[in-house]
């Protein structure tokens, strides 16, 4: 077995006297991709990351058994994670007045909170205000890619040309054909696992070895196939065959840790930005990374109105610094990039940088989730337990609504993520009534016999769904925080009802007894797929960026994260974020060479 154990590159001294070709804010999927593309084109790049550079393998400890951990994976006493009730009954800032030493988002409540306690932000230091929103943030090198859910899907022209299809919102300024070559590049550079299904609404990737399905999942797949529907193995942003060009990542050995914990892989078979993008970019000699750098303003030249760099605080010492760049690239996440633009007010840009349209922070969208179904596969009750969870994910049922049909209650669609089979902890234990020998036997006999799936649906972008700066509340660094003005609408609620009803029909048609349905829509933000706050478009009056994620107002300013997305699709965004960033940075490098930026 050849496990990859190559140490990260040595930290460099950061020279803030020089003017870099580009300064990137953020080190997640978008920032990492920008660094990869620009350094491979020979540009000198400085990357600022607000969080620490963690010894990530020590944090994740993927193979540690629960009984080898003093609290069976739980974080130390004094830590608290927010619950659904807290998110709904209370108003942000949720950690205000909390008696706990540390307060984390709901992700800290998943099994294994000790493994993410240094990855997730402490809500006490990072408040926000306004409407209810479950905002999950990770401040460390690589950001949320260290623990992302791995579902790596492409969008199609059903998404890019959604307005043409149903009349709502705006089309993207690009078509699938524009992005397809870049999706291919992302697939081949980072590795993706899946099965070709030839679906126009969910284009195939350049797949490596797919995960296998377990018995219950095959049963559902076969039943759906008869109805002309598709259940496909989880399309995971995971290298299952290995990547010859990357010495920092191992191939997947089906350990299953990424799906058992809040995510993460300490052999980096799962894509994460540091090992997938940043360390190789550092090896070119063109990338300098400065962690602990909390950016709070994009600096603008008084005479030209162009971006000239980024003002930041050292996150630990709180000393002020400036990084100088010929180009500034924001990749701080959908909400943090919008916040930075709004914070960067100047006489030339009184509403915030790149915000002559007034659309920065608006058209905020994401995925609605919560509704789902659980079924019992009677054939598996009492059968010997098999290895079912040694893989990066279960299955995906792609969108099927409003493709050829027109639903009366809602537009757009949703897909289901799900899984079946035996797992380390028998989650059905608390739904098994009673106690004693019969209870114990029932738990044992039913382990692995359930199948569950939950839907992720497209939330429509609306101008009136937005974030702005709170006039009073500041974070632990004294920086004004975001205020949310964001609620689901009837379209999402109607869609959520359909998610439950249709999920039930699917299981029943497969001869699987439905034993549980969840019709509860989780708090806004729960999907961690926030998008749209600086959307692309051809019209500078109604959009913030052009098709290359370049500011309409400021030619040397780019925003390459999810904020640029024009609509949310129902497909998970990470792979699209990276394909777009690759395309835009390719364009940027061309123009930079010609002196046009």
């Amino acid at each position: 077995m050849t496990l990859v154990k190559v140490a990260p590159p040595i930290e460099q001294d950061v020279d803030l006297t020089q003017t870099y070709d580009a300064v990137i804010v953020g080190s997640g999927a978008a920032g990492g991709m920008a660094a990869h593309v620009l350094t491979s084109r020979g540009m000198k790049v400085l990357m600022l990351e607000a969080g620490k550079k963690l010894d990530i393998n020590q944090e994740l400890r993927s193979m540690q058994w629960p009984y080898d951990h003093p609290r069976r994976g739980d974080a130390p006493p004094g830590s608290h994670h927010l619950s659904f009730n807290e998110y709904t009954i209370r108003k942000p800032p949720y950690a205000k007045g909390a008696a706990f030493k540390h307060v984390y988002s709901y992700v800290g409540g998943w099994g294994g909170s000790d493994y993410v306690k240094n990855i997730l932000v402490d809500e006490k230091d990072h408040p926000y205000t306004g409407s209810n929103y479950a905002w999950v943030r990770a401040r460390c090198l690589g950001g949320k890619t260290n623990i992302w859910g791995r579902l790596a899907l492409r969008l199609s022209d059903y998404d890019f040309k959604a307005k043409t299809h149903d009349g709502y919102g705006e089309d993207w300024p690009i078509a699938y054909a524009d992005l397809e070559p870049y999706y291919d590049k992302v697939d081949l550079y980072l590795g993706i696992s899946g099965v070709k299904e030839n679906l126009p609404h969910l284009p195939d990737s350049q797949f490596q070895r797919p995960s296998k399905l377990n018995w219950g999942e095959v049963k559902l797949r076969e039943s759906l196939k008869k109805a002309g529907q598709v259940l496909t193995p989880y399309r995971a942003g995971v290298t299952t065959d290995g990547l010859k060009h990357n010495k920092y990542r191992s191939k997947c050995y089906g350990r299953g840790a990424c799906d058992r914990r809040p995510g993460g892989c300490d052999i980096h078979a799962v894509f994460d930005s540091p090992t997938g993008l940043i360390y190789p970019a550092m090896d070119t000699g063109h990338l300098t990374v400065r962690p602990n750098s909390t950016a709070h303003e994009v600096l603008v030249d008084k005479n030209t109105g162009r971006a000239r760099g980024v003002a930041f605080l050292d996150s630990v010492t709180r000393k002020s610094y400036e990084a100088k760049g010929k180009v500034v690239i924001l990749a701080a996440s959908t909400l943090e990039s919008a916040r930075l633009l709004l914070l960067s007010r100047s006489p030339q840009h009184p509403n915030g940088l790149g915000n002559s349209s007034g659309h920065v922070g608006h058209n905020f969208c994401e995925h609605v989730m919560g509704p789902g179904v659980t079924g019992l596969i009677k054939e598996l009750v009492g059968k010997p337990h098999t290895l079912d969870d040694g893989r990066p994910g279960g299955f995906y049922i792609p969108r099927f609504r409003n493709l050829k049909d027109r639903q009366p209650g809602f537009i757009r669609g949703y897909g289901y993520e799900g899984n079946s089979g035996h797992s380390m902890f028998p989650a059905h234990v608390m739904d098994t009534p009673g106690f004693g020998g019969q209870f114990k036997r029932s738990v044992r006999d039913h382990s692995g016999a359930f199948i569950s799936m939950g839907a992720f649906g497209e939330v429509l972008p609306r101008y009136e769904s937005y974030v702005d700066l709170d006039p009073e509340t500041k974070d632990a660094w004294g920086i004004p925080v975001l205020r949310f003005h964001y609620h689901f609408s009837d379209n999402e609620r109607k869609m959520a009802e359909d998610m439950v009803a249709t999920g039930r029909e699917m299981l029943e048609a497969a001869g699987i007894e439905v034993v549980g349905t969840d019709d509860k829509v989780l708090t806004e933000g729960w999907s961690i797929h926030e998008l749209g706050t600086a959307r692309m478009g051809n019209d500078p009056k109604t959009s913030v960026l052009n098709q290359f994620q370049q500011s309409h107002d400021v030619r040397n300013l780019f925003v390459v994260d999810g904020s640029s997305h024009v609509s949310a699709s129902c497909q998970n965004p990470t792979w699209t974020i990276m394909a777009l960033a690759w395309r835009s940075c390719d364009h940027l490098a061309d123009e930079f060479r010609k002196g046009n930026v």
Partner: protein
Amino acid sequence: MTDAPKHPESLSRRDMIAATAAALVTPLLQGGAVSLQPVAGVPGKFLTAAEYALLDELTELIIPADDHSPGARAAAVAAYIDGRLAESLEPDWQAKWRSGLQAVDGLSRELNAKPFLEATPDQRVAVLTRMAAGEADPKTAPERFFGELKGWTARGYYTSKIGIHLDQEYKGNVYQRGEFAGYDAK
């Protein structure tokens, strides 16, 4: 569903128990790390000796040893819960356990005219049966405590070596080489 694959049953249940049990439980027992006797007279880190003995007995009643696998006592579930209580910074949670255990004794006095640990095995089961009766919609103090007790017992047991390997016969958290488990989608 004729085209669904057959469930693999090549490896018998007995083979698996023998293999896993030999690997795990023998060193556990030989090392003296686990006592199968009820704890008595020994205080926990948080609980008093009496409370600790009561909790130990309750956990074993909820998940008892059977012919398949050892129970909560062998898995040291009471020690796990006591340890969590001892290091907790939440006095409300600690108080909930203290009063919950008192409520169990209170119910036993009401039903059996003696404290729980002095009652006969059948009488103890009767107390737990009463506590569990309101599981779906708990109303009394003992009924409310039952959910807490069962939840932490399950958590302690099914995250233990015995729970994961002997009872659940979990096969994962391993490096798979060559053939991966499961069925191809096609």
